[in-house]
């Protein structure tokens, strides 16, 4: 089937899509956007977190066809471009919240969603918001640091 939807503000067309494909597969394998990660493909780890019409979803749990005529936002679309990083991305690097980095894109998109809804989250709120994102390297401490730092910088911008 042919699939038409918007990704990071650009209209995309994917042809010969098998109806069983997930949004994750189409992003990664057909549209050349592998920044959204394939860690569990069963909605447990949050590595494939993307926006679908502004709502945070696991791209692995969305059938590709469900994205027809809708707008998808991925980690590749967060930075302003021309080498600029989003403050959340910068905070993850500076605090040491990135090790292997496989969970990082999903965590950054989830944090982006959290701070958009709640610009000054308490620690328990950060933990709750990120509870669906698994990381095996960092032990989460530096990730909490990154979210706090990003919130702080957004507040003083």
């Amino acid at each position, binding site marked *: 089937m042919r699939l038409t939807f918007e990704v990071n503000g650009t209209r995309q067309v994917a042809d010969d899509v098998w109806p069983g494909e997930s949004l994750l597969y189409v992003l990664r394998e057909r549209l050349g956007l592998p*920044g959204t990660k394939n860690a569990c493909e069963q909605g447990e780890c949050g590595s494939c977190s993307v926006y679908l019409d502004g709502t945070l979803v696991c791209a692995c749990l969305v059938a590709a066809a469900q994205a027809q005529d809708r707008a998808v936002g991925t980690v590749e679309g967060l930075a302003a471009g021309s080498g600029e990083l989003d403050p959340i991305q910068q905070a993850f690097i500076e605090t040491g919240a990135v090790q292997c980095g496989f969970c990082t894109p999903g965590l950054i998109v989830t944090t982006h969603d959290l701070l958009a809804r709640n610009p000054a989250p308490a620690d328990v709120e950060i933990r709750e918001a990120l509870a669906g994102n698994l990381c095996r390297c960092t032990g989460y401490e530096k990730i909490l640091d990154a979210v706090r730092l990003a919130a702080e910088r957004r507040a003083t911008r």
Partner: protein
Amino acid sequence: MTAGSTRAQRGAETTSAPGGVGNSTLRPDGIPKVTGDFAYSSDLWMEDMLWGVTLRSPHPRARIRSLDIGAAVATAGVTAVLTHEDVPGSKHYGLEIADQPVLAIDQVRYAGEPVAIVAADHPETARRAAAKIIVDYEVLEPVTDSRAAMASGSPLVHATPTQDHYPGGGNILRHVRIRRGTPEAVADVVVTGEYDVGMQDQAFLGPESGLAVPAEDGGVDLYIATQWLHVDQRQVAQSLGLPDEKVRLSLAGVGGAFGAREDVSMQIHACLLALRANRPVKMVYSREESFYGHVHRHPATMRFEHGAQRDGRLVYVKAEVILDGGAYASSSPAVASNAASFAVGPYECDNVLIDGYVLYTNNPPCGAMRGFGAVQACFGYESQMDKLAAALQLDPVELRVRNAMHEGSVMPTGQVIDSAAPVAELLRRVRDAPLPADEASEDLRTMPGGVSNTTHGEGVRRGIGYAVGFKNVGYSEGFDDYSTARVRLEVVGGEAVATVHTAAAEVGQGLVTVMAQIARTELGVEQVVNHPADTSVGSAGSTSASRQTYCTGGAVKAACDAVRDRVFAAAAARELIVEGAVLREGNIVAPDGTVLASLVDVIGTHVVEETREFHHRPTGALTRDLGAPGAIGQGDAHVQFAFAAHRVVADVDTELGLVRLVEVTTAQDVGKALNPLSVVGQIHGGTTQGI
């Protein structure tokens, strides 16, 4: 660790070269990892690539009566369907013992064992074709209990098991005996205990994956996430029946490892399919398949007997540690050696009787996972120390301090600890750290059971526990554990630039940062490029055993030393050098700070390149002489040790058994931290993985 203390730490390190050793330099791969541009092994893509999938056994033990691939081959879109008959070289592989079939031959020994592989133009096509392969299994009763597997009447997992480490027998893959002192020692107080610890999984996030590309010379290029490129290369080449140089491996982005990428998973399979199809083949395991596709942490059944004096000093320890190795050897012999040699813990004890076993069973194969045998034993000996403290009515920290190993102490293996071993100091530090406040909050999220609303604080008690552990750094028992580094210095765009080329696997731990820091410090340059890791340079050994900063870092330093020697020789030829000069900020600098020459001037258009190896000091095998009681299992098997102490504060709902971990405090002896931010990150991550 809070954000504040991280910043304070970073601000304090201003004495060394910018971005050099001792700084919390940020990762060079940080930006691509936060933007999504970093190419992990599962992200690789080629225009004409095929997808490979694996058919696995649903049975833990069965004979294969017949295998019919006809329907799979006939499926539209399928390019190749391969079985063990299609493996041109060695049909078995393995890290220490080649006992694992590339594809099952006439029988399967664990549920999940690969039986056939398929390449097709879409992953779903390949999966459906694999499902059409008809395997006629004669299902047999599996061997699943490691203690029962030791019994003489047990069915054999391997009809002719490989036992090149110790005369065991039956399903015993290795028996490590350690005897020291007298078995007749008499103690005032004796405590015994039996402990079982279950299987654990590394569960790295980036699934096993890679891309194999057939080459014009009849060889293959493999882009792969692994922990040791050269050990993969050797095993892949042997099974393909190709010389090593025709199997070229390049490290793709690695999404975590923790030991689970030491063994080959899809490497040989992808290469077999690519060579048969003459097309690039990508394989990516699903999460479920990943659990079948790599080794796990060994489950252990342990018995301990500790005898002590009234004052708490250990008189003797008897320990039996039985590890379930699963169907194939992997690194089990080395894991068993660790479990046995660390079975007493970081304590002094003159009389020891230790038996460590690892068994073949029909359970999933076990091998390396963070801690590598030291972890299972730790649960046993630390449980015993708590029991002993209770029996002696001693404070558990005080009991540990009284027995703590220190520099000069002797291991059960007779090895003298000849470097820092501040076990008592680590214990005191975690004991003396301030305790967390009792939050006395009504917020369910701070209760055991959380928002499942199981308690509002009634029945909740706070507990505090302590433990210490230790582990070897680097490979043990006589293995020539080395790493290779090639360092090049040249002028690019009017600036001296160093390029560091190794085959060392960056798996997230931050080696790429540390290698560049070492080059900056040694060569006095700002710009350091990490060449992609591949097999066109000598082996770097495994990213395992906390050894890469030590070994590959050592090789990078040695190569930098050699490059600097040549730069100094060139400078000397032009009389631009004095005794004691160093490289700093792009210049040759005299001891008094005078700039003697710039690197750009001295190097000119030359390329200064040197390759060096670093070998850690030799270790030896443990003695196995059964005729020498009192001195069995002795030897300087380990290079050096790392020590850690933990204090855990937990709230326990005593009615339901639910636990909320309030805080873990740890003190660890890390020596000089080359990158404090990374070291703290490793400690956070390792500690959390232990929880």
